[in-house]
């Protein structure tokens, strides 16, 4: 053991030039700028849709076990504030659930979760609800959703209506299970609108000048205009979009439109600022229940839009197994009935109707009337003929298509 021999690495370390303060600052400055410029890169996926192969499912779920807690992000007004269904879930499985109504808009939600999911970080939620629209598709293409393991979703298999298993935006429910569906139709206030409207042409009626409400979502108004012109939205082309945009521009120029609203159209409809408006079925229901108003809803003869809010599991969820159990839990007819009684939107579980009727029979007074209204409502349990009139949003095959669509319809709402 000669102590003349110094380890070469140590020697190198001892004689290397020390970083002076100026060099450190310079390096830090360059490093920071480089980090900034690199950070600004929005990374996507070079390839398109990821495969739906069964081995993907197995690969994701291999070795995952249930945790003790689930974080659930949802839209407002989608669950009774006392969370009775979640309490039952906790009793049954022992997993606690934190429920937050933080999703107000798909686009906003997507903008929030995209950087985190793209960086493979947790967004703080195990389960979330997103509408079938552009953002849903983008999440699928970017691989943000965990594929569902249908071998564990027994309630879903047994109780979900067949229609909801083959929806065009997620055939065979690879990633999503519907939470609630809704219809976009025409809502009106009979106090001001004497002849009940029957279709889109009523939204052009000069008698309602300045009193017509339209939605600001380009997918909603695009669909409406296309259906008004007899075009099937799901298979529409760019020329169809141009025609639809022209319909909307003519409507706008004629002065009948008061404004293009978010969900707040309903308060304007209720207080008389707007007499007739594009509306979502459940909102009309809820407004009538809240204030005793007499607003009415009708599916236009040319057609209405059926949209679905879906439960999906983000790929970085901390407790995906628990999340999936929760999804399945909501397909129990009793639980689905309990949800539908509060939400008043279409439930994907037809068996819930019988449960609600039974609840109505057992209840009394105001509750009885309300429950009977829900059980018999075509807005919560549409008939086959209703469904026949409804269309989905247009699915875009490429982002370029989406941009084109937006470029055509944006000027109508933002000028």
């Amino acid at each position, binding site marked *: 053991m000669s102590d003349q021999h110094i380890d070469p690495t140590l020697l190198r370390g001892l004689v290397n030039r020390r970083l002076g303060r100026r060099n450190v600052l310079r390096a830090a400055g360059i490093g920071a700028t480089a980090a900034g410029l690199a950070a600004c890169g929005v990374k996507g996926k070079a390839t398109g849709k990821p495969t739906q192969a069964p081995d993907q499912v197995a690969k994701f779920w291999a070795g995952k076990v249930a945790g003790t807690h689930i974080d659930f992000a949802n839209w*407002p*007004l989608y669950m009774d*504030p006392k969370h009775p269904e979640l309490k039952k879930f906790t009793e049954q499985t022992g997993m606690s659930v934190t429920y937050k109504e933080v999703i107000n808009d798909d686009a906003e939600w997507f903008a929030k979760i995209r950087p*985190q999911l793209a960086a493979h970080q947790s967004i703080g939620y195990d389960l979330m609800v997103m509408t079938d629209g552009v953002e849903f598709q983008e999440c699928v293409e970017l691989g943000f959703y965990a594929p569902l393991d249908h071998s564990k979703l027994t309630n879903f298999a047994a109780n979900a209506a067949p229609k909801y298993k083959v929806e065009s935006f997620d055939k065979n429910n690879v990633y999503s299970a519907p939470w609630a569906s809704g219809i976009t139709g025409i809502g009106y206030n009979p106090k001001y609108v004497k002849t009940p409207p029957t279709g889109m042409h009523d939204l052009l009626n000069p008698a309602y000048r300045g009193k017509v409400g339209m939605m600001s979502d380009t997918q909603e108004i695009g669909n409406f205009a296309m259906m008004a012109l007899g075009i099937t939205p799901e298979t529409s082309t760019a020329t169809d979009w141009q025609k639809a945009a022209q319909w909307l521009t003519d409507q706008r120029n004629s002065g009948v439109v008061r404004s293009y609203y978010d969900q707040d159209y309903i308060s304007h409809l209720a207080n008389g600022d707007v007499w007739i408006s594009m509306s979502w079925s459940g909102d009309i229901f809820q407004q009538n229940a*809240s*204030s005793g108003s007499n607003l009415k809803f009708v599916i236009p003869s040319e057609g209405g839009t059926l949209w679905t809010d879906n439960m999906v599991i983000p790929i970085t969820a901390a407790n995906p197994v628990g999340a999936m159990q929760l999804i399945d839990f909501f397909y129990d007819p009793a639980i689905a009935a309990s949800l539908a009684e509060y939400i008043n939107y279409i439930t994907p579980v037809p068996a819930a109707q019988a449960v609600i009727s039974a609840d109505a029979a057992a209840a009394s007074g105001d509750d009885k009337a309300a429950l009977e209204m829900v059980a018999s409502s075509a807005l919560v349990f549409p008939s086959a003929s209703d469904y026949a009139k409804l269309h989905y949003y247009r699915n875009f095959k490429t982002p370029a298509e989406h941009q084109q669509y937006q470029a055509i319809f944006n000027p109508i709402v933002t000028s």
Partner: protein
Amino acid sequence: MTTIDESLSEALERPPSAGRRRVDAGDRPRRRVGDVLLHTYTWIVIVWLSLPVVVMIVFSFNNPHGRYNTTWVGFTTKFWSTELFAFQDLTRALLNSIVIAVLSTLITTILGTMIGIALGKYRFRGQGSLNLLLFAAISAPEIVMGASLLSLFATLNTGFGYVTILIAHIMFSLSFVAIVVRARVLTLDPSIEDAARDLGATSWTTFRRVTFPMIFPGILSGALLAFVLSIDDYVVTSFTAGNVTTFPLWIYGVSKLGLPPQADVMGTMIFAAGLIIAGTNALVSARRSR
């Protein structure tokens, strides 16, 4: 802790003429009318500013049968008593907001005051760039600020929560405090500080006993602005919050459909608490000045 300035003023005020100024007898009626008009005008504006709060208070007594709360249905006090804490996350969100706002105000006021003083009192290289930076920070649209912060934090993999919200709030409030404090500092008479130094005070003592009391209203105003900006922020907070909920985040979605009466109650309670604080402050200072 009176400064030279204030004691001089007091000396001038002591003569026993009516009111704080020596006024011409002929001027008096006109001045009084003008004062009364201004006084009334101020109260009118205060009422105008509080109108939406009145609406909120009224709707906290509303009794909607469903969840929408935009039309008056009937009077009830149940949301003030039995149903008040039906939303557990609402209370927590409110607490989060207040804590973050207080912390943000403290830090922003200190940092912003320092910048404001530097810009107001000294000439230094980089002054123009600092001004530019401050104005740029106010002018950036919130969506872009929020989104860019989100990307930054995601890249640095810091996780999201109270700290990121606090960082964001301090960032966008800094300029407001700095600009308001600077406006105040620019009105200072430098000769007073020179006088203090001539009398042997060190620069720290000068700051503490001369400068600081003189710019205090500016600092207070800046702090109030910072508090309001923080407790009320939606866009930037929603991007940087992770799964922490603040009050604006909680109510943003539902506020367009009418807040549930419980939220109106909470809002009313905040407002009432503020009124009480303001009232006691006024009483205390009135008693002190007598």
